[in-house]
């Protein structure tokens, strides 16, 4: 087939257009999160003292932290799904780092140093490391499926961003089960769990997001 012939086929196919990435990605995230929500209620459930927890600043800050991660990872996913990225995409995560470090600094400033270790180790560390990746599986699969319509300059990086987004979605659910609200715990263990999912996302992206 000559290239001029191919051009005719492409012109005939001009009117087909995919859904805008932003909407499709948001939809996939919701579908994945609903699937994980079923797992959440089946295996974990909401902590019984949720009413009191909602009135503490530590719990609220935990939710804010997770939501900031969710919003920033979403915009990072969109940015990295394109062949060209303007500026440095990773800088989009700067607000997350600022919120996380500020939260840790505040906690260290107001807690006596004797209780730092207790807060850091918490009561649910291992559950956290298992539950967040488990709750991230469905969102990760859904997000990767949508990103296949993109054309990422780096499929592995786009996959890593998908991993971060899925980890944030998983964390948003897990936050309502977990009793440990100290920023010391959240930044450390949620962070480690997220790194696991990011690594899985990068490996999957490297394979699945080539175009």
């Amino acid at each position, binding site marked *: *087939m*000559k*290239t*001029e*012939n*191919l*051009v*005719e*086929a*492409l*012109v*005939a*196919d*001009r*009117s*087909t*257009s*995919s859904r*805008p*990435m932003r909407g499709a990605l948001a939809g996939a995230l919701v579908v994945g999160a609903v699937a994980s929500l079923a797992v959440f209620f089946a295996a974990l459930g909401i902590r019984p003292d949720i009413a009191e927890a909602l009135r503490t600043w530590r719990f609220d800050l935990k939710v804010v932290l997770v939501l900031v991660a969710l919003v920033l990872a979403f915009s990072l996913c969109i940015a990295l*799904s*394109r*062949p*060209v990225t*303007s500026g440095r995409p990773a800088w989009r995560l700067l607000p997350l780092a600022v919120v996380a470090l500020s939260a840790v600094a505040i906690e260290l400033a107001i807690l006596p140093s004797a209780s730092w270790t207790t807060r850091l180790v918490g009561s649910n560390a291992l559950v956290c490391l298992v539950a967040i990746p488990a709750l991230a599986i469905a969102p990760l699969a859904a997000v990767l499926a949508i990103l296949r*319509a*993109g*054309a990422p*300059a780096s499929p592995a990086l786009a996959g890593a961003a998908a991993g971060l987004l899925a980890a944030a979605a998983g964390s948003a659910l897990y936050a309502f089960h977990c009793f440990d609200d100290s920023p010391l715990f959240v930044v450390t263990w949620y962070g480690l769990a997220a790194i696991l999912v990011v690594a899985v996302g990068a490996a999957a992206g490297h394979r699945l997001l*080539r*175009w």
Partner: protein
Amino acid sequence: MADPTDLSALMRLARQGDDAAYRRLLGHLSTWLRIVVRRGLVSAGRGTADCEDVVQEALLAMHLKRDTWDEAQPIEPWLRAIARYKLTDHLRRRGVHDHVDIDDHAGSLVATADPDAAATMDSQRLLASLPERQRRIVEEISIEGHRAAEVAARLGMSEGAVRVALHRALKSLAAFYRRDLS
């Protein structure tokens, strides 16, 4: 329209439904791709025999991924990025792992001379591997130059079904390029 060589404007018109603008855009891109792909292959120490295959693969990607261009940005960096990705990918499949850079000598994206417009070896083989009906639709539209509505009437299908089959066929061709070529 202002400048017939303004590629961003051509793509915008194409998005608004202008087939002629899209044909003109793809024509400019084929010519430009031939130049940069040829240079890329030569600088990687490869022969230029498969130049046209890479051109077609890149053109197909620019078409299938055209929604990833952000209209707020100029289109040229987006086009260069796709050409670079496809050239790098092509060379990697053939065991060349060097860094490929097409930006230095790309110059203007609207080239004047057309060095070579040969038919390709691979696309013919890839076309043959499509399901019978899809292959026929692609050939009727691309080689015979029929319109989707005419092809639909000939094959006793709806025009929509022809368009769906054509789109699937193009996606399959892109996937074949990625997977099958050694």
